[in-house]
């Protein structure tokens, strides 16, 4: 039988992989992908408590649906910004985007 802890552990591991990728990767697209991975880990946690929580209900699934919608919007805007940056600076490396760096 499945337990809450297994899903929470999986979510924590995926979140840490995503966090590490977002902190260390140099390509902007991969940083964006890592953020998506973190959001997926959060979704797994939400669905776990919607199914196995003290008061199982559909609300966790509705919330996950909203998270997915906002994530899709985020990717669209992020990739548009990436295309605009690439056109202007001709690079997709995070460390070259230092125009606003203090």
């Amino acid at each position, binding site marked *: *039988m499945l337990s809450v*802890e297994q899903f929470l552990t*999986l979510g924590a591991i995926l979140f840490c992989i995503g*966090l590490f990728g977002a902190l260390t990767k140099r390509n902007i*697209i*991969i940083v964006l*992908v890592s953020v998506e991975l973190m959001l997926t880990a959060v979704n797994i946690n939400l*669905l776990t408590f919607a*199914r196995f929580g003290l008061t199982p209900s559909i609300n966790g699934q509705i919330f996950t*649906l909203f998270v997915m919608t906002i994530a899709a919007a985020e990717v669209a805007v992020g990739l548009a910004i990436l295309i605009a940056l690439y056109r202007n600076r001709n690079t997709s490396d995070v460390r070259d985007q230092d125009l606003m760096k203090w």
Partner: protein
Amino acid sequence: MFSGLVITGQTVAFFLIALFLIACGVMLLSMKKVIYMAISIGGVFIGAAAVYILLEADFLAFAQVLVYAGAITIMLLFAIMLTKHDELERPAVITAHPVWSVLGTAGLGLIVLWVVKFSGIKWPQATADSPFQGQDNVKMIGESLFSQYVIPFELVSVVLIVALVGAITLANKEEKN
């Protein structure tokens, strides 16, 4: 570690899926070519959809396959090819930054795993029979979305349309007059 684990079809499926998910995540971190990283994130999204099915969120599993594994992965591949598609990830220079990243991520992971496993929190016990037994998942989501959550639903649609128009405006090449 998982004391009292009963081997059933569900647990076997869970551990296979979890192994696949973590393997794809590690591939995302360790691949040399950027395009392979984007393909391994597609694997992560499909594995997450399988986890959603195990959690009895059927509609969300299909939405995950359609939106993430279909649309977002393809869009990422397009973005990679529009920039520099054969570019290798540059080898990391040993500075203070990666060390702090490793320490911070490992520390966070250990804290979260400690809270999940060893802190003595009593997580709610999973019941063998589903709490949503005999109910249509899609119907439940639809009824909830259009009665209790109708205002957030409309707001999210506004956010989506604003994001679409904004993305087109940002990526549009300005006319030289």
